[in-house]
């Protein structure tokens, strides 16, 4: 049994998560929405992992592509615009647009050395955020675009109105996001061992040696850029869909990019289970543990004066920062390192 869990953690997790809404009624409420967001961040992090983990390119602006996906989705579906595509068509177009913008950014900048590329992505993230905020006629400024209709609006299967079901019960979106996440995990796993995936790793390890072996480093890096942007765009579509609004542009700012990057590195670069675990820890800490600890402190009345020194969320940033520092100090390869990376590290420091 233990052996089975270790080998097939993915199936076990999928079954547990798929069964959870049937057992836990709380997932039909606000908690369901939070877990859906968690799944969406997992997809976003898996997208970033293509760039940072497999290909070794530091990307500090992944949230921009998350935002592009979300805003494209909204533009294609909200009543304010004439397009009003169906959900699936809108999602496909948004993902393609995100990938295209990724290519457009990557093509001129890929010859930059590592840290310079990081700055370009950071700068691009800021440009996108400022643009989303200021182009009020197109993006709705700080209000964002809404309402993004639920998937399957107007589609009726027998007595069931699909759009209405999505709008009323968060469990529908829970399953949609879970299915998307499972799909992305499967796709990533296939990619990892494909010709392209091995080329990504080869470029990460040694770009010169890889090109000497006949790999076109530029093309390989560009495809990583496009893939990363596309997956981030998909996460953005689901995000806008699940909230039924794009929310304000600050949802796609640098701190979001950094959080996702930290999740990937914390979990283990290039490792799918690591990435998922990293997101679960970071996002779970923020949205589940911190509010819970705060309410606990309030319940026990330790903090009658309401001082921020005595509330858990007052220490949120410090705990978060300390965790990053400690993990990097004692497990620089991440919590669940990819086998290849771990092997390398141990070879380098016997």
């Amino acid at each position, binding site marked *: 049994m233990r052996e089975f869990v270790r080998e097939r953690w993915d199936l076990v997790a999928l079954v547990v998560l798929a069964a959870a809404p049937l057992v836990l009624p709380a997932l039909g409420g606000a908690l369901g929405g939070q877990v859906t967001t968690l799944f969406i961040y997992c997809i976003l992090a898996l997208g970033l992992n293509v760039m940072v983990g497999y290909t070794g390119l530091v990307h500090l602006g992944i949230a921009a592509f998350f935002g592009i996906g979300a805003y494209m989705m909204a533009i294609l579906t909200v009543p304010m615009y004439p397009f009003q595509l169906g959900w699936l068509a809108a999602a496909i177009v948004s993902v393609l647009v995100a990938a295209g913008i990724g290519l457009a950014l990557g093509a001129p900048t890929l010859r930059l050395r590592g840290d310079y590329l990081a700055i370009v992505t950071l*700068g691009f993230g800021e440009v996108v955020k400022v643009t989303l905020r200021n182009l009020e006629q197109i993006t709705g400024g700080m209000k964002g675009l809404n309402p993004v209709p639920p998937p399957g609006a107007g589609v009726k299967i027998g007595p069931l109105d699909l759009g209405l079901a999505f709008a009323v019960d968060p469990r529908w979106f829970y399953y949609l996001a879970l299915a998307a996440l499972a799909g992305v995990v499967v796709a990533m796993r296939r990619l990892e061992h494909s010709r392209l995936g091995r080329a990504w790793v080869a470029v990460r390890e040694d770009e010169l040696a890889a090109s000497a072996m006949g790999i076109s480093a530029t093309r390989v890096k560009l495809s990583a850029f496009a893939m990363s942007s596309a997956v981030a765009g998909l996460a953005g579509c689901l995000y806008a869909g699940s909230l039924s609004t794009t929310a304000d542009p600050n949802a796609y700012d640098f701190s979001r990019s950094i959080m996702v990057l930290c999740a990937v590195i914390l979990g283990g670069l290039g490792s799918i289970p690591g990435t998922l675990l990293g997101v679960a820890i970071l996002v779970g800490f923020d949205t589940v543990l911190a509010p819970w600890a705060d309410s606990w402190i309030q319940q026990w009345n330790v903090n009658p004066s309401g001082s921020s020194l005595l509330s858990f969320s007052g220490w949120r940033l410090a705990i978060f920062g300390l965790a990053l520092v400690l993990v990097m100090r004692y497990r620089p390869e991440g919590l669940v390192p990819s086998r290849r990376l771990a092997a390398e590290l141990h070879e380098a420091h016997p």
Partner: protein
Amino acid sequence: MQFFLQQCLIGLTNGALIALVALGYTMVYGIIGLINFAHGDLIMLGACLALSLVAALGLGLGDPGGMAAAGPVGTWLGIALLVGLCGLFCGGLNVAVDRIVYKPLRTAPKLAPLVSAIGVSFIFMNVGLFWLGPADRSFPELLPAANLLPGDGLQFTWKDLLVVLIVGPLMLALSLLVRGTRLGKAMRAVAQDPTAATLVGIDVDRVIAATFFIGGFLGGAASVIYGLYINTIGFQMGFQNGLYAFTAAVLGGIGSIPGAVVGGIVIGLVRALSSAYVGERWTGAIVFAILIVILVFRPEGLLGRRTKEKV
């Protein structure tokens, strides 16, 4: 025309301030290849200390329009004291962080120190949150707003003079130190090749510590100027200012000290001109768009050296 010149003057003063912060990024990067994400927040803590010191020394008392109650001599001495103390504080803190956090990671994968720096930045921010509270705080005006130039044309106030008076000597001292002293020579050697530097008898760790101290000291001085010049500080100020300064460092060619100064001044000018002619809210986008364009055409930055990749 006069409006344009005025904007340039604002840009230059702002740019000098950005350059001071950019030096902290570029020196650390030049020597250990680390993007020190915590530098902006270090400066935020310096500004916290400056605010507390202003209150403790009673410098902020008196007529807000004129010189403070301490009198002109007292005020300038007080400012000098602030610069010194905040510089020592930020420099010392920077060295301590290097010793505790970055030093054990010298041989770790390259991303590890970067993530640690992000972690340190969060910790600093939390300290700043406790120190200042969640809201922005106003920093007392210590200098009169009178114009120093004749006529009602261009405005050049005591505050602008203050920036020049602090930044000028610090830059001069830094360039003398890097060019003329043994420590400066050792710093340049370590930046070029740490292993070879060890072989010729340089204590690399001490040189790195010295670099962190100098970068931090300049940041501490910048934090005092920031408080006196911008007059509003908050626990989140580190991020945005750090971003601009870091952009300046990259623009000038990261690792290059004159590059950081040039980059800072360019960013300052771009910021001032785009705020004046395009609108404040687009400034961030314009600065970063220019950065991307410059990097595409000159990937090594304005004054950086092109490095050939070796097998």
